């Protein structure tokens, strides 16, 4: 046995020798009991983690998984989902091959003729290079969805747009900067919310509603019981299945396949803007880190300090990037200019930014009106164009899970923040 903090090795005995694979189950069990008796809670946790994650079939592993998830047998045997998934060598080889194929498709399209890859006025060679760079970036981020869109996109001659009526100009680089600024703000707020959540989890902030008002607006924290998606996703797959029910939804692909002639009746189209950001623009991200060193001796004090941090962060970001209302207006105006410029172009469009591997992808999203479809189709036809997904079912979960696990997933005290700027 050992003391905590130096890494628990389940095979290593106290005398420095190592036990065999067959003996390790019993050894973990006895190490766990020893750790409990010594009162070393860190070591207890280390042994428990090893038992559940590496030896779920051992007696201790089974027992701990049962206690944690309230289930027995095969469900408990499933290893916990890995948070940081990394592809295996074989998967990586397939991904590399896929990238190579997509790059070949782009090169082939360029060879077939300029209009297959470049839109009017664009240089074919440059279009191919910009598209290849963006695809490589999307692939490096494991964003297959974006790779797919880029592989069929055609490239605009530039990333600058002008509104013919008002003369207002916008370019992709500035749109990307706005997007990065928005993400910087959201990320800072998420960190504050995360810190508040840790205070709730530690019992420092109790359920309730807390408000902070100052000259910039009203900041509200609500702590109430709710569904914890992260905790649900951490359950073994078979457990998730056991506490879920089928949920039907209309599939636009199935509708297009089975009833192509009726698509116009139920389907509307909207243009979606997405980004490829290989070179992160500098919007001063490093200066917009929120203060997370807050706590309090009472719920009210801790909540007030958290909300003050949110207020301070919001004040600084608003000064730099504009208020939420101003940012939304700017986003809407720019989107309108870009979308009207490509309104008559079919298929996916890539507008290159000046910076390497950066660009904007415009694609068409098809939206099915469920109400119209259900009114016009028979139940059998609806079924034909529906897909079944699984959704968490509270009643099933109540029956299957232990009360503690149920509460941890479906009744977890959670933080919700709301900012109401001063009018």
């Amino acid at each position, binding site marked *: 046995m050992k003391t905590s903090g130096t890494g628990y090795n389940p095979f290593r005995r106290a005398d420095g020798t190592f036990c065999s694979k067959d003996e390790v189950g019993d050894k973990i069990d006895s190490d766990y009991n020893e750790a409990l008796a010594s009162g070393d809670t860190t070591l207890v946790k280390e042994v428990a983690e090893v038992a559940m994650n590496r030896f779920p079939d051992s007696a201790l592993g089974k027992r701990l998984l049962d206690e944690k998830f309230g289930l027995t047998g095969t469900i408990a045997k499933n290893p916990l989902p890995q948070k940081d998934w990394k592809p295996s060598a074989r998967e990586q080889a397939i991904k590399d091959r896929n990238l190579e194929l997509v790059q070949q498709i782009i090169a082939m399209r360029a060879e077939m003729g300029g209009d297959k890859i470049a839109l009017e006025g664009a240089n074919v060679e440059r279009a191919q290079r910009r598209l290849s760079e963006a695809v490589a970036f999307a692939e490096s981020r494991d964003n297959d969805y974006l790779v797919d869109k880029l592989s069929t996109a055609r490239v605009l001659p530039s990333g600058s747009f002008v509104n013919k009526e008002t003369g207002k100009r916008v370019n992709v680089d500035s749109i990307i900067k706005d997007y990065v600024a928005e993400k910087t703000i959201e990320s800072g*707020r998420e960190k504050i919310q995360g810190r508040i959540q840790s205070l709730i989890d530690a019992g420092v902030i109790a359920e309730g509603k807390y408000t902070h008002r100052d000259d910039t607006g009203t900041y509200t924290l609500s702590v109430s019981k709710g569904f914890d998606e992260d905790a649900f996703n951490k359950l073994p797959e078979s457990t998730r299945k056991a506490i879920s029910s089928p949920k039907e939804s209309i599939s*636009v692909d199935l509708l297009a396949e089975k009833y192509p002639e009726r698509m116009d009746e139920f389907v509307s189209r909207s243009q979606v803007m997405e980004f490829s950001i290989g070179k992160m623009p500098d919007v001063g991200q490093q200066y917009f880190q929120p203060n997370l060193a807050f706590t309090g001796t009472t719920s009210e004090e801790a909540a007030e300090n958290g909300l003050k941090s949110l207020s301070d962060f919001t004040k600084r970001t608003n000064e730099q990037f504009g208020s939420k209302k101003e940012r*939304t207006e700017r*986003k809407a105006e720019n*989107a309108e200019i870009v979308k009207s410029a490509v309104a008559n172009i079919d298929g996916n469009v890539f507008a290159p930014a000046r910076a390497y591997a950066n660009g904007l992808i415009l694609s068409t999203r098809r*939206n099915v*009106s*469920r109400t119209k479809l259900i009114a016009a189709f028979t139940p059998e036809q609806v079924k034909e164009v529906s897909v079944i997904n699984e959704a968490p079912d509270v009643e099933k979960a109540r029956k299957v899970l232990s009360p503690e696990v149920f509460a941890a997933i479906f009744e977890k005290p959670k933080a919700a923040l709301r*900012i109401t700027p001063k009018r």
Partner: protein
Amino acid sequence: MTSNLAEALVEDFAEAGLAELVSPGKLKSYSGENVVEVLQEVVTGANGNEIEQIVIVGNGEVIETLNIEDEKFNDDFFRIMRTELNL
């Protein structure tokens, strides 16, 4: 259909397949990046008259409060919603 206007407006968006309904009055964009909540409130004006308003909240921050009697209500509402939901 719900009798609450805010929830009904949100339901329309979800029914049209434009976004995913999270809970009454709350939508999530299909990319999962944006959550938009629509609330209804009644405020009492200076003359004691009551004004019905729709509040649009994007990712936890109030973006706009619209008066439902306003002629531009529909245009403004759909413009903000589409922008926030990346449509």
